[in-house]
C-alpha cells in the first residue's frame, strides 16, 4: 500500500476481483473520507472475510459470532439454509456486530464493488451508529459482549454436562418464551453504598427529630388508614415489575443457582438486542445513507470508476425499494427505504429547504446537515425519529395512508392519507407503529405471595382492547415451570378493572 496513491486521488482498482490488499486500500480510502471529511466517529474495525456457509451460521445466532447451543438456533439455521439453497432468499451481504472493535463479516463471493459498499455500510455506517446512538450507549457495552457470550456458551455447556441437556433445555425454552418481557426499559438506580445508606438514615432521623412535636402523638389514628397501610406493607412487589425475567431470576422460590444464572444469561442477551429492535429504521437508514454518500464522494474523487458505481448503485437500489401495499411481495414499510429516504430528506431540508419545510422544520431548515444528522443519530430512536423528522414531502412520495381496524366497525376505514389534513395524524400513527411499548402487550408482575402460597400474579393491562395471542397460555406454562408455584395472569381493561384471570396450577 503506497500512501501517495491513497492520499491523493487515483483509481484504486477496476474489475470485479478483490484481494486482501485491495480491501485494505478501499478501507483506507473510505476511512479517510468518513473520518476526515464527514467526521464519523467509529470504533476500530475488524473486517472478517467468510464463506457463505459461515454466513448461514452467523445468521442463526442472530449475528453473534458465538452463542450457547439451543435447538431454536438449529431451527433458524435450517430455515435459512433451506431458503438459501432453494434460491428463495439470497444472503445478506454483511453482518455487523455491535462490539468494540466492531466486527463486520464480508462474504467471499462478493465482488470488489460490493465489498467496498459493505465496508462503507457496515464498518462506517452501522459502526458509527453503534458508537453514537444513545440507546446503544446506554444499554450495551460493546467491549464486553463477545467475552460475555463466550462465558455464556461455556456456562451453558458446563451445565449440560453437570445437570443433563434436557434440564438445561427446559430452562432455556422457558426463558426464551419470556425474552420479550425480560428487558429493562429504564436504568435501575445504582444501589447505595453502606456509607450513603448510613448518611441518609442519619439525615432522616435528624429531620424527624427537628420536626418532633409532642402534640401529634396525642392525635387518634384513623382505623381505616392503618388497615390500608398494613395491607400495603404485605404486598410485594410494592410497585409492579415489568421485567419478568429479572423478577424470576431474583425471586423465583425454587430455582437452583445454576438455573438462575441461565435466566440471567438469557436476560442479558435480550437486553443486548433491546436497542437493535428499536432503531431498525434509523440504523439501516443511517448506514445506507453513508454508503451512498461515501461511495459518491469516492467517485467524485475519481477513486472508483463508473462500472463500480453502476454495480454499487444497482445493489443500493434493490435494497431501498419500497413496494406498494397492493404489489406482490409487499411486507410493510421497508426500513432501508424509509430510513434512507428520511436521512436524505433531512440533508435536503438543510441544504435546499422549500417553503413547506420552513413551516414544518423551522429549527433545521437551512442548517448544517452534518450537525443535524449527527444530532438525530445520537438522540433518537425509530419512534421519536419518525415523529420528529418525517416530512410531508416523504409522505407524499411514499403515498402513505393509514387504515383503521376497529373492533366496533364492520369495515376497515381509511383513517388518514398523505394530504394537508392527514400529515400530522399520519406521522403520529406511523411513529406509534414503531413504538415498542405499543407493539408489546403490557404485562407486569403485580403480586408475589411470598408469605402465603407463593403464587405469582401478573397483570395484563389491555391497550385499546387488543387481546393477547392464544399462545399466552403456553408462555404462562413456561413461566409456571420457572416459578415452581401457581402463576396467574389477570387481564384488565385500561382503567385497571380486572376482566378475566387465567391460572396455571403447579
Amino acid at each position, binding site marked *: 500500500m503506497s500512501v501517495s496513491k491513497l492520499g491523493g486521488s487515483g483509481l484504486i482498482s477496476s474489475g470485479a476481483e478483490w484481494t486482501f490488499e485491495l480491501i485494505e486500500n478501499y478501507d483506507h480510502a473510505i476511512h479517510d473520507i468518513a473520518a476526515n471529511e464527514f467526521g464519523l466517529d467509529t470504533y476500530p474495525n475488524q473486517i472478517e472475510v467468510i464463506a457463505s456457509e459461515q454466513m448461514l451460521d452467523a445468521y442463526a445466532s442472530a449475528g453473534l459470532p458465538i452463542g450457547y*447451543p439451543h435447538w431454536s*438456533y438449529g431451527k433458524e439455521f435450517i430455515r435459512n439454509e433451506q431458503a438459501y439453497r432453494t434460491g428463495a432468499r439470497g444472503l445478506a451481504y454483511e453482518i455487523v456486530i455491535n462490539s468494540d472493535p466492531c466486527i463486520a463479516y464480508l462474504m467471499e463471493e462478493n465482488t470488489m464493488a460490493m465489498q467496498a459498499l459493505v465496508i462503507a455500510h457496515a464498518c462506517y455506517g452501522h459502526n458509527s451508529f453503534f458508537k453514537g446512538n444513545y440507546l446503544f450507549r446506554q444499554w450495551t457495552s460493546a467491549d464486553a459482549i463477545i467475552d460475555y457470550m463466550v462465558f455464556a456458551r461455556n456456562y451453558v455447556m458446563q451445565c449440560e454436562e453437570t445437570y443433563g441437556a434436557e434440564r438445561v433445555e427446559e430452562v432455556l425454552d422457558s426463558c*426464551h418464551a419470556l425474552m420479550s418481557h425480560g428487558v429493562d426499559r429504564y436504568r435501575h438506580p445504582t444501589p447505595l453504598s453502606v456509607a450513603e445508606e448510613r448518611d441518609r438514615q442519619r439525615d432522616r432521623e435528624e429531620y424527624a427529630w427537628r420536626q418532633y412535636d409532642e402534640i401529634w402523638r396525642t392525635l387518634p389514628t384513623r382505623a381505616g388508614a392503618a388497615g390500608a397501610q398494613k395491607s400495603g406493607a404485605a404486598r410485594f412487589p410494592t410497585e409492579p415489575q415489568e421485567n419478568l425475567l429479572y423478577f424470576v431470576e431474583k425471586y423465583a422460590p425454587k430455582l437452583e443457582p445454576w438455573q438462575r444464572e441461565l435466566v440471567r444469561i438469557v436476560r442479558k442477551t435480550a437486553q443486548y438486542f433491546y436497542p437493535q429492535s428499536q432503531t431498525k429504521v434509523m440504523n439501516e437508514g443511517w448506514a445506507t445513507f453513508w454508503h451512498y454518500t461515501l461511495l459518491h464522494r469516492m467517485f467524485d474523487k475519481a477513486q472508483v470508476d463508473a462500472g463500480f458505481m453502476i454495480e454499487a448503485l444497482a445493489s443500493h437500489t434493490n435494497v431501498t425499494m419500497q413496494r406498494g401495499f397492493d404489489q406482490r411481495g409487499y411486507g410493510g*414499510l421497508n426500513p432501508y427505504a424509509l430510513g434512507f429516504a428520511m436521512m436524505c430528506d433531512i440533508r435536503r431540508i438543510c441544504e435546499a429547504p422549500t417553503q413547506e419545510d420552513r413551516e414544518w422544520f423551522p429549527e433545521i431548515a437551512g442548517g448544517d446537515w452534518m450537525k443535524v444528522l449527527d444530532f438525530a443519530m445520537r438522540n433518537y430512536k425509530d419512534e421519536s425519529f419518525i415523529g420528529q423528522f418525517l416530512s410531508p414531502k416523504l409522505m407524499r412520495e411514499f403515498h402513505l395512508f393509514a387504515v383503521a*381496524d376497529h373492533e366496533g366497525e364492520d*369495515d376497515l376505514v381509511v383513517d388518514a392519507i398523505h*394530504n394537508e389534513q392527514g400529515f400530522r395524524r399520519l406521522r403520529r400513527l406511523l411513529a406509534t407503529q414503531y413504538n415498542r411499548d405499543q407493539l408489546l402487550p403490557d*404485562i407486569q408482575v403485580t403480586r408475589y405471595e411470598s408469605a402465603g402460597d407463593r403464587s405469582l400474579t401478573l397483570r395484563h393491562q389491555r391497550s385499546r382492547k387488543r387481546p393477547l*395471542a392464544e399462545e399466552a397460555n403456553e408462555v404462562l406454562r413456561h413461566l409456571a415451570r420457572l416459578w415452581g408455584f401457581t402463576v396467574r395472569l389477570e387481564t384488565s381493561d385500561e382503567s385497571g378493572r380486572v376482566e378475566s384471570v387465567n391460572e396455571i396450577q403447579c
Partner: protein
Amino acid sequence: MSIIIDRRLNDRNKNAVNRQRFLRRYKEQIRKSVTDVVAERSITDMDKSGIVNIPVKDISEPSFHHGSSGGDREYVNSGNRHFNSGDKIPRPTGGSGKGSGEGGEGGDSDNFTFALSREEFMKLFFDDLELPHLVRNTLGEARDFKWRRAGYTPTGVPANLSVVRSLRNAMARRIAIGAPLRRQLLEMEAAQVAEDEIAADEIAANEIAAVRSRIARIPFIEEIDLRYRHRVKDPQPISRAVMFCLMDVSASMTEDKKDLAKRFFTLLYLFLTRKYEKVELVFIRHTDDAQEVDEDTFFHDTKSGGTVVLSALKLMQEIAGARYPSDSWNIYGAQVSDGDAFGADPEKSRSCLVDQLLPLVRYFAYVEVPDQVDRPSPLTHAYQRIDSDRFAMKSVMARNEVYPVLRELFKREATA
C-alpha cells in the same frame, strides 16, 4: 486502522450441534413426514436425502404478543393510489388486518420444510423398521474395501516403514542442522590460515576440534525422520445383481399392505445396492396372470381378478432365463402376497419354486400380509414345507415385522 482477517478456513459447521438438537427434539414429527415421503418415493431413490415437512405450529416458540385481530389498531401502508380518508374497505376474510406491523416472512405456508441429509433420512427410515445395529451399519456404509496407497505418515507399524523416505528426511535434517556449524568451521579455518601466531593457533585448533565433534555428533537417523507408507480403505462394490419383486395385486391387497410390501422391497434393495455395484429391479405383478410392469404401475395401479401365484413364478423364471443368466447375475427374489391362492395353485407354486427357481437364486424371501394372523393361508401352508437356506418366509402385520424375513440373509451376507 482496520484489521482484516481471513476466516474462510474456520469451522463451517458451527450449527451442526443445534441442527441435531432440533432434529432430536422433533423426531416424532419428522418421522411422520419421512413416512409420507417413503410412500411417494421410488425404491431406487430411497437412499437419497429427502425433503420433509413439519407443521409450523408444532415448532413455534411462544411469546407474549397481541393477537392478530380484535381491539382497535391502525396500520400505515405505502402505495396509496385511490383511497381518500373516510373510505371503507371490506375486512379481508380471516380477520387479520394488512399486517404491516408484523413484518417478516412473506409467503410462508403452514409447513416448515427442510432437507434431511441421506444419513439422517436413512436413520429415520431404519428406525421405523427396527433394524438391529449390525444391519444398520451394513446398510449405512459400503462394506467391501480395497486398500489404496495414500502418501506417507509419520506413524505406523515397522512393516510399513519407507526406507527411502525416512533416509531422505534424515539427510535433510543432517544438512539443515549441520549447516551453521559447517559455516562456522569454514570461517575458523580461514581465520586460522590468515593468522600465524602460535598461541592463538592452539586455541583455535581446540575450537575447531570441538565444532568438528559437534558435527560428528549429529545423529544419522532420528525418530522424527521416520516415514511410513500410508494406506486407506476404499469402498469397493462387487459385481451386479437383479432383484425380482413379485406382488399379488388382486383387489384384496389394500394400500396398507402395499406400503408394507414397499418397505420390504426397499430394504432388500438397499441391502443389495450396498453389496453389488449394479442392481436391476424387475417388477412382476400378478392376479390370475402375470405381467412385467414399471415401478409406478406396480405400486399404484389396481387390477382386479383372481389369484394365480404360479403365473408370476413362471414369468420370473422366463425373464431370468432370457435376460439374467445365473452364472453372471446374482438373482434375488422377493414375493409379497396375501396368500389367498386356490385349488392346485399353492402346491404347483411350491414345486415350481423348489425345483426351478431356488437353484437359480441366491435368496428368495416371501412375505405374507394376511388379514388375520391366526389362520395360515393356503400358500403359507404349501411354502412351509420348503426346506432351504435360500428361502425365508414370514407373515407380517406391521412394519417392524418386515426385517426378520431378511434376517437370515443379512446374517449370512453381512458377517461373511
